[in-house]
């Protein structure tokens, strides 16, 4: 059986990796071509961009004259990553509990459901002015958007998943004598978690963007702030560098979450 797993994963995974590499190569080639057709300030070429990542890692030479201490890519990206991951984590935890509760408590459902469904369509960036007015450029303001979006997304998904489960299993389980608590933990949570993983991935993907915008509009530190600063100084290659670094981190975290999801599902089964 183990041999079979290896055989399967070898063929499929190898093919996927080969395709991914080919894809990246294709994009890099196209990119270089485009970059050659125009000046660096518009589209820098790939080598330049990689160069900026390396140069800017610990500090940013060009900016040393403008800012007293300009931390490098590493520190700024770290700030962003910390914010995003923490907010997503908190939003997920809160969202799961709230979503499940919403589906199972008639009172909560009654009051909060219609507004919640409306808020699901709300453009989250609209909260920025509020956070700025309330918290200035405190870190809370940067958490806020991502947390809010994650919370709403996960709540809606957890609620829906719970409703699906409750429909099927609740009467059956209860007629077998299951207590409320038993039902909640052993039946609902395992059914809800896979859906929530999907919601987490969506929230993460959006979260990087929201976090960046929040930082652009006023943060002491962070990838977004770097981008803002680079924009003003027309350092396009450096902007691309930051974007790619965040992109790589985003892809990795997304992959990790997906893997965690598969593992959880396997374990529950």
């Amino acid at each position: 059986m183990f041999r079979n797993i290896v055989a399967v994963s070898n063929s499929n995974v190898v093919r996927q990796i080969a395709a991914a590499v080919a894809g990246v190569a294709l994009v890099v080639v196209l990119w270089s071509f485009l970059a050659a057709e125009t000046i660096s300030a518009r589209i820098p070429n790939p080598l330049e961009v990689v160069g900026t990542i390396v140069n800017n890692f610990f500090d940013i030479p060009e900016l040393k004259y403008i800012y007293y201490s300009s931390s490098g890519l590493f520190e700024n990206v770290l700030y962003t990553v910390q914010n995003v991951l923490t907010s997503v984590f908190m939003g997920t935890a809160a969202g799961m509990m709230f979503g499940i509760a919403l589906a199972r408590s008639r009172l909560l459902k009654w009051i909060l459901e219609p507004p919640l469904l409306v808020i699901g369509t709300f453009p989250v960036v609209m909260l920025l002015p509020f956070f700025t007015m309330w918290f200035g450029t405190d870190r809370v303001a940067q958490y806020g958007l991502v947390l809010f979006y994650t919370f709403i997304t996960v709540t809606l998904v957890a609620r829906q998943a719970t409703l699906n489960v409750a429909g099927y299993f609740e009467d059956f389980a209860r007629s077998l004598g299951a207590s409320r608590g038993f039902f909640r933990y052993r039946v609902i949570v395992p059914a809800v978690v896979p859906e929530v993983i999907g919601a987490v991935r969506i929230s993460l993907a959006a979260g990087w963007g929201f976090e960046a915008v929040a930082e652009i509009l006023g943060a002491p530190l962070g990838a977004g702030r770097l981008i803002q600063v680079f924009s003003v100084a027309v350092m396009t290659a450096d902007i691309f560098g930051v974007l790619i670094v965040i992109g790589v981190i985003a892809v990795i975290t997304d992959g990790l979450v997906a893997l965690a999801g598969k593992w959880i599902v396997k374990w529950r089964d």
Partner: protein
Amino acid sequence: MAGIRTTIGASKPPQERHWLDFRVLSPRSLTLISFLSVLVIWEGVARTLGTSKATGASILPDITTTLSAFVAYSNYWAGGLGAGDTRMGFDETLWGATLGLTYNLGATLLRLVNGLAIGLVLGVGIGFLVSWSGLVRSVLAFPVHFLRMMPLLALIPLFAMWFRDKNTGSILFIAIAVFVLMFAATLNAVRNVSPYQSQFARSLGASELFVYFRVVFPGILPELRSGILLSLGFSWNATLASEFLGQHNGLGVIVMNAQEFGRMDLIMLSAVICIFSASLSFVFAGRLFSWLVRWAE
């Protein structure tokens, strides 16, 4: 077995119903009551906590204050059609405010719809053409995934830099971001197509080209729903964000301006208007799409 209880549906005998049994009420009235309670909670929080004890500044304006901020929209109307430019000393009027709001909200919506439409058409169109080849699909899968994961919203300053006309820059930005989303969604949808229908079509004499455009394409449309709604959500965020970062007109510009002057009430009103507009746009988009795929089960 003692203690078996079946609780299927709302079939409790009348005397067992709790006084707070909401199943008696219709969904419509429930929604109404729920929104009313939201308003009540808003007013309550605003009155008790809405003013900062330390600075006296308004944290959460109450309902009347928010509504009365409406006239301030006349400050964002450059004059004409019966209302004067407040910068020239004219008063804030209700009519001016109406014009101001309509103009700016309209500008926002125009930007949004343009960017969204371009992105949708190109994303689905090019995505579909490209998906003809399974090889191309698998090669492009990773780069597209990467582009989706990149914080696209952070590109707004870049686009502002690239395009002299900020409006064009903003529309193009939205279009590109939506393009990436829909391109990925289309690739995925084509990959998930079940072969049976195509085989059926081929056995009826359809050429591969006919099958691809007249069978596969309509078949994937229902699956694009979530991508389209995500694109709409993203477009709202992208449009507002680009307005925050610098445009000539738009709801986002108003909000940024209001923030500078500390006008919490105007920000609040704009947020409420934004909530309405956004949810209406989703309802509209949902209905339109449902009509388009009305044949789907």
